[in-house]
């Protein structure tokens, strides 16, 4: 397989670490070498999180170099802009069209960027930009916490793994009472991204 550099970002508490753990398990089940690392800091307390995943026949550095990411999955849109520099030219970026304003914005000390500003930053690197209403969809599913798995579903058609392997990993990692809703979220995400090829829009 072609080496794959995948990044997942968002704010602490959105379930990024679980999402990237699941990707890691899927990759290892597919027989690849995997390294996964998070710039987690104090993520539980709402800070910015970036998870790096490298999947190949043999991986050395766990950290991805700037400009070498194949896919950036952002659970929050400001974070997509913040880490866009990690994407390679024409890499894929999938963004949850949802803002979690940092405290400095609420205090009036900073300004949250507009959608156009975010898109302008992303489009300097790539035309493959997908904006997804993930938070809305997760709410429709009845559990906002399924956002991470829904977004993984959105990323899955771009990754060389079987749907059944995804399902097995998700089922293994999630407790029984939320297992089915997360499997549904994954499938819905997978469909959703196919319906919104807005990359060139």
């Amino acid at each position, binding site marked *: 397989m072609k080496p794959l550099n995948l990044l997942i970002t968002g704010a602490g508490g959105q379930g990024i670490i679980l999402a990237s753990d699941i990707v890691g398990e899927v990759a*290892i089940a597919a027989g690849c070498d*995997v390294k996964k690392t998070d710039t987690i800091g104090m*993520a539980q307390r709402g800070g910015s999180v970036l998870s790096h995943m490298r999947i190949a026949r043999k991986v050395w550095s766990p*950290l991805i170099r700037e400009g070498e990411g194949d896919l950036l999955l952002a659970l929050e849109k400001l974070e997509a802009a913040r880490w866009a520099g990690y994407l390679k030219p024409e890499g894929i970026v999938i963004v949850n069209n949802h803002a979690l304003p940092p405290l400095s914005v*609420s*205090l009036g000390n900073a300004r949250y960027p507009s959608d156009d500003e975010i898109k*302008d*930053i992303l489009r300097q690197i790539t035309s493959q930009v997908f904006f997804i209403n993930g938070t809305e969809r997760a709410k429709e599913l009845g559990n906002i916490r399924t956002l991470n798995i829904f977004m993984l579903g959105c990323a899955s058609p771009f990754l060389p793994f079987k749907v059944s392997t995804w399902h097995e990993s998700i089922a293994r990692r999630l407790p029984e009472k939320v297992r089915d809703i997360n499997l549904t979220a994954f499938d819905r995400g997978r469909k959703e991204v196919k319906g919104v090829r807005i990359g060139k829009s």
Partner: protein
Amino acid sequence: MRKLLSGNEAFALGAYHAGVRVATAYPGTPSTEILEAVARFDNVYAEWSTNEKVAMEVALGASYSGVRAMASMKQVGLNVASDPFMAAATTGVDGGLVVICADDPGAHSSQGEQDNRHYARLAKIPMLEPADSQEAYDFMAHAFDLSEQFDTPAMVRTTTRISHSKTVVDVKQSQAPPARQPEFKYNAAKYVMLPAHARIRHPLMEERLVKLAEYAETCPLNQVTWNGRELGVITSGVAYQYAREVFPGASFLKLGMTHPLPHNLLRSFASRVKRLIVVEELDPFLQENLQAMGIEATGKEFIPRVGELNPDILYEAGQKMGILPGSPHRKIESSVELPRRPPLLCPGCPHTGIFFVLSSLGQRAKLAKTKDRTRADSPLIITGDIGCYTLGAYPPLLAMDTCACMGASIGEALGMEKANVGKKVVAVIGDSTFLHSGITGLVDAVYNNSQITLVILDNGTTAMTGHQEHPGTGISAQGKEAGKVELEQLIRGIGVKDVSVVDAFDMKELRSSVRSALEKPELSVIIVRGDCAVRVPKRGEPRAIDIDSCNLCGVCLLLGCSAIQRTDEQLHIEPSLCVGDTCAVCQQICPRQAIGPQSMIPIKATE
């Protein structure tokens, strides 16, 4: 079996498969998960110790009893444990004793970036440095063997990137080996460090170091990979992975054992490459050793001593060395300044209310507006400590003036008082940190007739590192019922007369107890008690803001609660973040009484 394990999980499994019987630690990022993982195994005693010094002593005692033992800690934890660590290096061991020390280059979650490789040299003991989770697993057995073979504690040094990255581990073993029968063998010349005995141990330590250096020459953990001879790289730990990535054509001497160093191996490798570089994080530990041997090598002239290394930084260094071509990587051009997203106290945090009280009594809001921070003035000095609550130093609360190391808040406050600083001094410390190293400071305050106010933030857990138990919770590391140290009793027992316990979410009571403590000319301790909102998630009815009553005064925003947000010149409380009834701190401080339970607020206001 192939598993995807973090370095810390791999250390735990490696120790288990090497037959560890006693494991100790105090939580500290990035080392915490090692003990958490060990605690899940059968037939191993695992404990959260009061602090790293005690952890080291308990592990040492177990080793003296003939069983394999380990203590794990973060880099600054070894400072706390350095006394028994040096003692262990002096007496040597019986059962294998391994100290895992997790450094934090980049200070992701630490008060400093110290490079603990120097400790191995100071203690004259062997040090191993794994470069991924597979090695984290494999090296543990080596470390225990080395410890027993050379009668020494062995140090395993990891870093945040090794401890927290997940990489594939091939686990060949499934069971722990049978344990040795515990037995203490009387040997006063070895275990009783009277000066007469200590003087005998020292030459033995020097001999041990010579033997270890001989061993290092053929140690299987030091590996040479021959590629091109134009460039040779000497490296260790995660820096090896970055170097393999950035210099694919070079030859490598990867050191798995970094103390003592294999001088012949280093010389032979150096003589067989045209140019030699050293790739290491933080201090020039390897490079200075090479220089002392008279081997010419470049490294820290181009690779920063500061911060965490990564492949981008190393690539840039390679360019400056004239080894690598210019990078084609295109930078994004944008005039938009993206707002930072630092960590915050969580919604419903029991620390928010008391910090708001200290902030307002200390007139801290005006500090933020003072341009020249050195002229900023507050009627209150707040010495701080280490935990989630250190985040109270950030705007808008600005409720902390110092944070040095675990437990320092109390001694610092006392020092300021005794220096006649001329202002009231309040020390703020968490429950776990107080038990770790605040008690002795408080004893000093009692003894020396101090009049400071000590606020203990008791959230019933060690929250910052991920909610570990501690002596005040009454639950052991293995989830069993355990002895419980009652803070009030302990503090009264020390001799503090003015001790009060206040509900962390009762703003009126918080304010009056701090006021009264500050007025009293005696030592006061206020225990502010409330459950950590993440560990004990209690969801009540969220609060909401009635926008007809709200005049946008912004007082609620001074709490720094991430649930209170401003959008389109209106304030609102995000219901999915607000914990509701158990907190309601914002409701208590709103000067217009514009905040209340969601159901009591007119519908239009919550839209």
